């Protein structure tokens, strides 16, 4: 949800700077471009610096290839060693939440676990249909790929439908 930064602490330093989402946006974009300049010789595709869906797919398919001998595809970029983006994100988020004392176990119900589990499966399927998560869609758009731009517009339409559902649900609950 949208946390507001505390007003008392407005000094300009790194600690406050990284609380601004736009700083992270610029960072992801710029690092991704740098990564391509550095490592494109490992294999394509282009605009592949950061992607939750695609990099997770590469990691899972690479592990299942080594363990069970499956032939599910990975990007040429991950042909030898897979991308470990998702593991990095987990470690980074864990360290950040531990250091700032924001880590706490938040349990759900069996119903919500099943809902999120199926949600994860569907997000992966839709993401692979688009060939991107919202992040790589942004990278591809910046690279000039108009299909990705249509993907972003579609995500926006999907969010619009979702917010309508939320509003209808809230109205039903308040009646």
């Amino acid at each position, binding site marked *: 949800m*949208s*946390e507001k930064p505390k007003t008392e602490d407005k000094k300009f330093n790194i600690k406050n700077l*990284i609380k601004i989402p*736009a700083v*992270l*946006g610029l*960072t*992801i974009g*710029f690092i991704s471009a*740098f990564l391509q*300049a*550095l490592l*494109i010789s490992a294999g*394509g*595709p*282009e605009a592949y610096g950061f992607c939750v869906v695609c990099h997770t797919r590469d990691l899972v*398919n690479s592990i299942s290839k080594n363990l069970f001998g499956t032939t599910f595809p*990975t*990007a*040429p970029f991950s042909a*030898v*060693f897979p991308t*470990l*983006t*998702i593991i*990095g*994100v987990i*470690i*980074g*988020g*864990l360290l*950040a939440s531990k250091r700032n004392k924001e880590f706490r176990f938040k*349990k*759900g119900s069996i119903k919500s*676990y099943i*809902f*999120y589990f199926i*949600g994860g*499966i569907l*997000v*992966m399927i*839709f*993401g*692979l*249909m*688009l*060939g991107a998560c*919202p*992040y790589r869609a*942004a990278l591809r*758009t910046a690279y*000039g790929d108009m*299909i990705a731009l*249509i993907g972003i517009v579609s*995500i*926006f339409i*999907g*969010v619009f439908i979702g*917010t309508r559902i*939320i509003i209808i649900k809230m109205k039903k609950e308040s009646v």
Partner: protein
Amino acid sequence: MPGWLAANIAVYLVPISTLIIGFVVGYMAQRSGFCSIGGFRDLLLFKQTRLFIGYLALIGGAALGYFIFSLIIPVAFPTYPKVVTGGFAALPGAPNAASVYGVLAMAVVGGIGLGLLGVLLGGCPLRQIVMSSEGNLNSIFFIIGLCVGVIIFYMFIVANLVNIINALFPA
């Protein structure tokens, strides 16, 4: 494809560099609450632009980065400004259709699905992973679902999907 580094060195740097990028992004995302779909949602529901500007900054930063680095080392950006990886699909191994309309149809369906699910689950894939590292058990089940989804997609869905798309949108 030639980059700054030789291929046999670059392959070793793939896991290391993506781990570092993931770490930096995960740390900063935890601090800022960065979320792409959350940005769209806050804009539509609450007229808040904080996260939405973050997403625009992502597109802007990437556009700037690709432009600058493609000037410095053009060989690393052979197809700039366009992503094409065999046929029309931009992701090797993802379903590829015979016509560009098929790819567009998959992008539209996939995008709407991602947006709708993102709102109902309360966050985009990156936000879910960050929430799981904050101790949210729901999000941990989401990550397990992501991994199972890969296997399900390649075992049962991809071939049928391509057949359906090609039947609907012949070349």
